[in-house]
């Protein structure tokens, strides 16, 4: 069972590296940085929770692909918008919106995925016991 776990963990890590490479070379640098920030938060905080390592790495992998998908869609949208821009003013306006919304919207998926993933690590309820008893 341990060998199986180790194999799954290695496979997941390879998938994460692949995901980062795709983000760097097929999407853009900002997407790579967003995924690295997500990985940093996830690894430093969630990995300290009680739970199996395979589950944690599995969730991390899922998070990376969610982020990659999000950024790919966002990237296609931005490329289409740039091509459709009628004049330099519209283009500049779009670039401004893109710069503002890119990290903001990325934060939203990071937070949503991270907070949902916490559900996988159950912790016995520690507060509120006396009031409810």
């Amino acid at each position, binding site marked *: 069972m341990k060998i199986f776990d180790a194999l799954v963990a290695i496979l997941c890590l390879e998938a994460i590296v692949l995901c980062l490479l795709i983000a760097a070379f097929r999407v853009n640098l900002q997407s790579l940085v967003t995924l690295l920030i997500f990985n940093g*938060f996830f690894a430093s*905080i969630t990995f300290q929770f009680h739970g199996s390592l395979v589950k944690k790495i599995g969730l991390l992998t899922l998070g990376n692909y969610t982020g990659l998908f999000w950024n790919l869609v966002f990237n296609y949208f931005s490329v289409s918008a740039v091509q459709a821009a009628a004049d330099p003013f519209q283009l*500049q*306006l779009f670039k401004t919106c893109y710069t*503002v919304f890119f990290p903001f919207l990325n934060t939203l998926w990071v937070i949503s995925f991270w907070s*949902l993933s916490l559900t996988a690590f159950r*912790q016995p*309820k520690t507060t*509120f016991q006396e*009031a409810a008893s």
Partner: protein
Amino acid sequence: MIEEILGFCFLALTVVMLTYLVRHYIFTLSVLRNVNRTKKAPSVQNVEFEPSVSILIPAHNEEYVIGRLLQRLTELTYPQNKLQMVIVDDASSDRTGKIADEYSKSYPFMQVVHRAKKLGAQGKASAMNDGFKLVNGEIVLCFDADYYPQKNIVEKLTAGFNNPKVGAVQGRVVVLNEPQNMVTRLVALERIGGYRVDQEARDNLGLIAQFGGTVGGFRTSLLRSLGGWDESVLAEDTDLTFKVYLAGYKIRYIVDAECYEEAVDNWKAYRRQRFRWAKGHMQCFFKHSLNVLKSKNLNVKEKIDGLLLLNVYFMPIFAIASLIVGLPLIFYGVALVNTFWLWVPICLYSFVGNFAPFFEVGVGVHLDGRTRTQWLIPLLIVTFLYNFPICARALLEVAFSKLTGRSKNVWLKTSHSGNGNHYIGS
């Protein structure tokens, strides 16, 4: 020239946000490490310290909740011969005073102070000072009327005073009526971030643990020497926090001393409460910032944390200000550093949970075992957006009073409906 100034402002705001982001990240890691090492706060079992304790309860029109608290206080496990309770009926126009009188007839350790209409309802600090005159215990603990403490909370809180350097203690506030509606659920998330992670981390790291105005207490002698509660500031708790530290004492945060509060259950009440906190906190910023910097009783890390704590209600304003300053810079392509890199810390720190970032709240919720509550974390963006106009208005009022020298503090009391009663013993 203007572009350079704007660019510099944007960069400066980002550095502030980054500082807070790193601070709260360290807090989160500290609490997680502490949990994994199973280090405990001062526990009741190993402390043989039983001082006389006075409990101070200010109450203004609290007929729906005061009975619940007084009944609970009669059930405390602390020896009753070492307890004194002073209930301040702060010019209530409802049955609060009558309920308190009925309890004081049955329980001789309870005393009731009735404040006259012309003196009363001038704020919590004023009522506390009136009640404090009657206090004769070595330790004075404070509870708001809408709170519901654990039976052994006095033992837990007084255990902290075993260390002579500790001048005050603070227990944990847990929202009682969390399932009531979306507002109470979001307030519960904020409380969890603040009390499960933020306060505990500050206690662990030897920084400025904060007295929250209730579920806590002081050495009576120290509080007398500090002059009691300052009636000129709206956040008298934050004011006392800094007075205690500046006097050379520490505040201990005791995470397992839980007390259940009835949180505000509508946006209007939330706005009024947060406005009072924001304005009071800003008043304390102007009152104590220089003292904190000059103090010889604070070490460098306490000074840094103290200043960051005093600044915290400016953060929603800074976040929106960075957006306003950043937009023209981005539009005209002017930036000292690529704006993407500047936006990241601002988004990560402020937009979801402006006082405790999302990961801090998430870890607190997880450690509390609130599996379903954590799904609501992304919705903290709503409270951030709501806090911006509240904090901006508070800043304008504080700035106006500083410029004109006219200061008028209107205490907007949070009313309690007793809805929390439903969740006790259910």
